[in-house]
């Protein structure tokens, strides 16, 4: 079947199978930041934005994305790089595999709530699993990023 959607700001029309999941579609389009982790809708590695909301691309049919706007990390490189540097500063990216999903969801959090509490950060990112770090580094990285943004705004 033919679908048309907007991927990282560009309109695309492609043929897909009825059961192609968005994750596979996006990787075929060269969006390799979108990773297959658990494949059971638990780990958050495959997080992308659909109409500005974070969703699991492993669990949604590409057909269902027709007519919608999809953004992957490739479509927000500057924002992701800026934020990702704070994660790296804390050594929170040991193998780095979870980073794209974690960064996408952290950005979603900060767009919704620019000054989240520690508890709010933990709750929002509960659907992003990391098997190396223990999450403390990511938490510090996010808090440092928020403090930096706040200082920038006040300067």
């Amino acid at each position, binding site marked *: 079947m033919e679908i048309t959607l907007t991927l990282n700001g560009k309109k695309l029309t492609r043929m897909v199978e009825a059961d192609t999941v968005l994750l596979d579609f996006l990787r075929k389009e060269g969006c390799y930041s979108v990773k297959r982790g658990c494949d059971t*809708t638990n780990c958050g590695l495959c997080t992308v934005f659909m109409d500005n909301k974070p969703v699991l691309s492993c669990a949604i049919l590409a057909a269902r994305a027709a007519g919608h706007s999809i953004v992957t990390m490739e479509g927000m490189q500057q924002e992701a790089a800026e934020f990702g540097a704070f994660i790296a500063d804390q050594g929170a990216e040991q193998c780095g595999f979870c980073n794209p999903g974690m960064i996408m969801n952290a950005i979603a959090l900060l767009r919704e709530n620019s000054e989240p509490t520690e508890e709010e950060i933990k709750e929002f990112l509960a659907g992003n699993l990391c098997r190396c770090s223990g999450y403390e580094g990511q938490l510090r990285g996010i808090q440092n990023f928020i403090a930096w943004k706040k200082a920038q705004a006040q300067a």
Partner: protein
Amino acid sequence: MLTIREYKQATTLEEAWQLNQKRPNRLLGGMLWMRLSKSNVQTAIDLSALGLDTIEETETEFRIGAMVSLRQLELHEGFTAYSEGANKEALRHIVGVQFRNLATVGGSVFGRFGFSDVLTLLLVMDSYVELYKGGIVPVADFVNMPYDRDILVRVIVKKTAAHYSYKSVRISKTDFPVLTCAAALTQEGVQAAVGARPAKAALVKDAEQLATLPMTAEKAQAFAEYAAGLLPTETNPRGSAAYRTHLIKVLTARCLTELGGKA
């Protein structure tokens, strides 16, 4: 592995219903549970284009479309105020935000899953499902109806005067619950729903007037013991039947104590 031969976005409920009468066809909710199944679907029927993704709030009720996401229900200000935050407590532990942006109220309720936090909460509310062919049915009845090929169009929650409390236990954050418990204090008295026993949620009313106001720790415990005596539990990898029965007593008593403070 799930395979789908055709995908159809229905343009009317009648079209969706007609397609759904064929056994190899399946309705799509959020697709999160279905995604993990091993089945061959001929036509996947999508309700996304039917405008069922909104929560309408009137003076007397909430009308929650079948395609409303769990995240929408979690964040809805009116529903949060009415449920006294019980909606947030019920929903915030379900996997992650990305998951809850996809999972639908219709899928969760129609599936009548044992682990459903949503169903547990709705059971203690004055709530109904609107079925395309079956009409409006109380959730308390719907939960025990046999599975059929009707379509759940929306969930209706009446703004009946009540206080609510919700609690659950999970072995680890974002896991399926070991036990879920919702309680309500209405003008008729106290009622509690317990899910993930691991069977689907069931409702217990205070037929013996054990937990009348003013609530005390002893009354809360008496009702909790009564509920635990009525609700069978089973063992699965997340917990034994005995542990779950113990949790029914603990969570129900805590919910009732909280309700006593709100009355």
